[in-house]
C-alpha cells in the first residue's frame, strides 16, 4: 500500500495503516525532536505526543507533503515542550557549575575507558554541536535542524514551518553564522579538516 492509501485508510480510522506511517517516520521525527530539545527522554515523549496528535488531527490533513505535515506537528510539539520547560535545568558544557564547583555530570567526564578513541571524539563533537544548537533561538534552531541535519531542501522547510522561502534562507544563514562562532569555542574537538578559521 502506498503512502496516500495508508493516509486515506488512517483517516477512516484504520489504526494499523496509521501505525505503518508511524514506523516509516518515527526515526525522523524522533531525531528532529532530539536535536531541538537535546534530551532523549523528552524527545521520545514529545514524539509520542506528536503522533497521537497527528492521529487525532488526521482529518485536517488535506493532501500535500505528509512529511511536511508531520514535521510541523513535531516542531509545534517541541515549541510547546520548550515553553513548558523554560526553566528546566540543563547540564552545562562548562567545566564548572554556577557555584564554581567541578561539574561531575559533564559528558566528557563519563567513564570512557572501554570506548575506542575515535568514538569518544565523535561523541564529544556531537555534544559540542548539540550545545551550540541549544544556544540558538528556537526559530533558528528549527530551521537548521531541518535543513542541515535532516537534509530537507528550502521548500520542504518552508512548507513544514509555514514560512516564506526568504525567511528560511535568512534564518538558515544566520543560524549557520552563529553556529560557526559557537563552534570556534570547541576548536580542539573539531576534526582537523573541519577546524574553522579563528
Amino acid at each position, binding site marked *: 500500500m502506498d503512502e496516500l492509501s495508508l493516509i486515506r485508510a488512517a483517516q477512516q*480510522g484504520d*489504526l*494499523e495503516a*496509521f*501505525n505503518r506511517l*508511524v*514506523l516509516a517516520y*518515527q*526515526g525522523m*521525527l*524522533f*531525531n528532529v525532536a*532530539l*536535536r531541538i530539545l537535546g534530551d*532523549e527522554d523528552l524527545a*521520545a515523549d514529545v*514524539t*509520542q*505526543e506528536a*503522533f*497521537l496528535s497527528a*492521529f*487525532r488531527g488526521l482529518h485536517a490533513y488535506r493532501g500535500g507533503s505528509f512529511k511536511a505535515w508531520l514535521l510541523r506537528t513535531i516542531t509545534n510539539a517541541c515549541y510547546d515542550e520548550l515553553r513548558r520547560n523554560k526553566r528546566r535545568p540543563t547540564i552545562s558544557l562548562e567545566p564548572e557549575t554556577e557555584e564554581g564547583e567541578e561539574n561531575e555530570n559533564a559528558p566528557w567526564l563519563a567513564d570512557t575507558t572501554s570506548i575506542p578513541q575515535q568514538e569518544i571524539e*565523535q561523541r564529544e*563533537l*556531537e555534544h559540542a*554541536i548539540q550545545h551550540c544548537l541549544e544556544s540558538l533561538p528556537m526559530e533558528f534552531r528549527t530551521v*537548521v535542524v531541518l*535543513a*542541515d*541535519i535532516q*537534509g530537507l*531542501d*528550502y521548500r520542504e522547510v518552508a512548507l513544514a514551518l509555514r514560512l516564506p522561502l526568504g525567511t528560511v*534562507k*535568512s534564518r*538558515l*544563514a*544566520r543560524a*549557520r*553564522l552563529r*553556529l*560557526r*562562532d559557537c*563552534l570556534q569555542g570547541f576548536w580542539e574537538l*573539531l576534526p582537523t579538516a*573541519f577546524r*574553522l*578559521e579563528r
Partner: protein
Amino acid sequence: MNELSSRDLIQLSAYLDGELRPAEAKRLEQRLAEEDALQRALEDLRQTRALLRQMPQRHPPRNFTLKPRLRGLRPPFPRTALALSWASLAILLVFFIALGSRLFGDLSIASSSPMAVARPMEIGGGTEEPMMSIQSMEGTLTPTPEIAYFPPAETASPAPEMRAMSLEESSPVSESRLPSWWFGAPIVSLLLLGIAFGLRRAQLRAFQRRFMSRD
C-alpha cells in the same frame, strides 16, 4: 566573516545549497573570484554545514505506534474543569452585562440630565447620597439640592409619592453603580479558566500515558 553584510551572508548560504537563481549565482561567483573575504566566509559556512551534516541519526528508544484500543477513544472532559469553565464564562458574562448597563446608564444621564452634567463629582464618587435623599423624602419630605434643582412647576404640586418617583427616575446612577470589588471579576474568571485548563491538560497527559504503547 562577521563583517559580511546580511545580504552577502544570505546569498553565500543559499549559494552553498544551490538555492540561488542562475543569474545571482553567476554574479556571486564573479565576486568570489575577486574577494578573498567572501571566499573565506563561504568556506566557513561550508565547514559548519559539513559538521552539522555528520551529526549521527539516533535510533528511537522504542516504537511510537499507537495501541488499537486508542481508536475512537477520547478522554471525557473532566467534570470539575467543565464546571469551572462554565463558572468562568458566567462570571465574565455577568460582568460585561453589568459594565455595559452602567456605561449606557452613564451615557444616558450625560445626554439627558442637566444635573448629571452640572455635577459630575456626584456621579463618579457619591454612592450613598442620592439614596439617602430618597429615603429622607419618603420619611420627612425634606427638600434636598436635587429637589431644589427641579423646575418649580414639577416640584411644587405633586403628591409625596410622585416626588419620590421623579427622584428615582432622575438618579439612576446610584442603581447602576458596581461595587469596586466587582472589577476583580475578570481576574477570578481567568483564574478559574486557568485551573480548568490545567486539569484538562493533566488529564490528557494521563490519558496518553495509559493508551500509548511502550514496546
